[in-house]
């Protein structure tokens, strides 16, 4: 297991399974308890360093750290010295001086957490960098999949939507293939990144064909904020070609699940009926996010004196 969690690609099958197994145990240990808090990381400091807005991921990390009794500092770029022109390196030195044991970094620039990991002694966790990666989202998706489908070997998982801008898709492809699943990416040709041939996944433009008999479908959010160019003619056309509705859901295998990393554009990439339907595990994904992040923090921050994992 690496010292930092920067990319889902850095995880071997063994280390990925260790994280998922640990999350399972933590979930067991927390189940049905009045006090939903463990003393595991008492006295440690986790800094949430968010250069990009993300309420959901930040709260999830904050809750995970607090449930392990760590001290949490939330640092958002807005209203901080970053908006006054401080560089990432200066921020890193500040964190270093404050003795942060772990830094959870979200940045709009791909590779920022990687840079940060060279400047601080604490463990760096990538909480989403640009269009690059979001490894803990992939881990929570894998955790959710494993709960519903058991082992992922040979399972067919379809990832649909804005693959070009999606760090979730990239991390999921890397992690799910490490865990033995077959991933198919489905997107309009304009939203498929260059170099996708090198990814351990198949690419298809035919959603109906890909969904038939699949074990899970993961819908991606259409990232309007990143759509400076014209990637598809109209929202309605996108919805018709790549949206998940009741008819398409019925093409999946019987025990298949429907996933979405959120926030959803209801009515565009997914219809409300499917998002709230029986096979949807979208709310469960959020709950699993906290558990998986607790596992990551535990594994990175214990045994620190021996130089990490």
């Amino acid at each position, binding site marked *: 297991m690496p010292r930092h969690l920067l990319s889902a690609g850095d995880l071997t099958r063994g280390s990925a399974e260790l994280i998922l*197994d640990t999350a399972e*145990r*933590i979930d*067991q240990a927390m189940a049905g*308890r009045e006090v939903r808090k463990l*003393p595991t990381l008492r006295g440690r400091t986790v800094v949430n360093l968010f250069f990009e807005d993300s309420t959901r991921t930040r709260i999830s990390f904050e809750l995970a750290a607090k449930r392990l009794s760590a001290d949490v500092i939330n640092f958002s770029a807005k209203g901080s010295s970053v908006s006054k022109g401080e560089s990432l390196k200066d921020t890193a030195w500040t964190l270093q001086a404050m003795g942060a044991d772990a830094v959870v970094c979200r940045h709009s620039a791909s590779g920022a957490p990687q840079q940060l990991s060279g400047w601080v002694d604490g463990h760096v966790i990538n909480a989403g960098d640009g269009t690059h990666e979001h490894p803990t989202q992939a881990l929570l998706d894998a955790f959710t999949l494993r709960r519903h489908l058991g082992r992922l070997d040979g399972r067919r998982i379809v990832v649909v939507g804005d693959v070009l801008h999606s760090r979730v898709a990239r991390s999921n492809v890397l992690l799910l293939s490490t865990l033995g699943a077959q991933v198919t990416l489905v997107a309009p040709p304009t939203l498929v990144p260059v170099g996708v041939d090198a990814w351990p996944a198949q690419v298809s433009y035919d959603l109906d064909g890909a969904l038939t008999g699949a074990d899970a479908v993961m819908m991606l959010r259409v990232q309007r904020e990143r759509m400076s160019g014209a990637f598809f003619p109209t929202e309605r056309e996108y919805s018709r070609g790549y949206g998940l509705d009741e008819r398409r859901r019925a093409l999946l295998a019987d025990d298949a699940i429907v996933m979405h990393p959120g926030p959803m554009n209801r009515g565009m990439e997914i219809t409300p009926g499917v998002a709230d339907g029986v096979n949807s595990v979208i709310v469960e994904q959020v709950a699993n996010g906290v558990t998986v992040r607790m596992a990551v923090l535990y594994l990175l*921050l214990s*045994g620190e004196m021996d130089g990490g994992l």
Partner: protein
Amino acid sequence: MAQPVAGAPEILTEILGGAQIARTIDRIAHQILERNGEQPIVLLGIPTRGVHLAKRLADRLTAFTGRPIPVGSLDITLYRDDLRRRPPRALEETRIPAGGLDNATVVLVDDVLYSGRTIRAALDALRDHGRPAVVQLAVLVDRGHRQLPIRADYVGKNIPTAFGDDVAVHLVEIDGLDSVELARAVPTREEITGLPGEGTS
């Protein structure tokens, strides 16, 4: 205090064999019954070997009393105070019996009692799962060297050990045989004679 040297020769002594372990478990089961009478008892094993010992104890208690005894397991890893000093450990299962722990007599079961830190962590963990009326401790082996004021209520065997000795408990469920072994480093000439040995100062 002599510390074992990696790769140094060791003397292995079998302290308990399979039959003796079975008799020891029977004896502890009787002691638990004598002490607690008709009180409802919950056994909680501390992973890994404590869980199997707890199951065996429960089987014997059921055989003696004719009533089922709830057994669970309590992983204490997340409650340890030395996580920073050790490599990360894979977590084991925590399973609290359906009836819960409130107002029950909980008997913690572990294989070896040593520093007492595991039991301290177990007491912390217990507090998060409920409020037992009484907590007792049963161990197969007490090897001494306590670092905390903790004492077992039921001890299979007291084994006086040196700080650097290693006590290994093997159980059929995990290791394929039942035995308790003491591994002691072969004493140096200095330790035997009190005279400086070759290569020591």
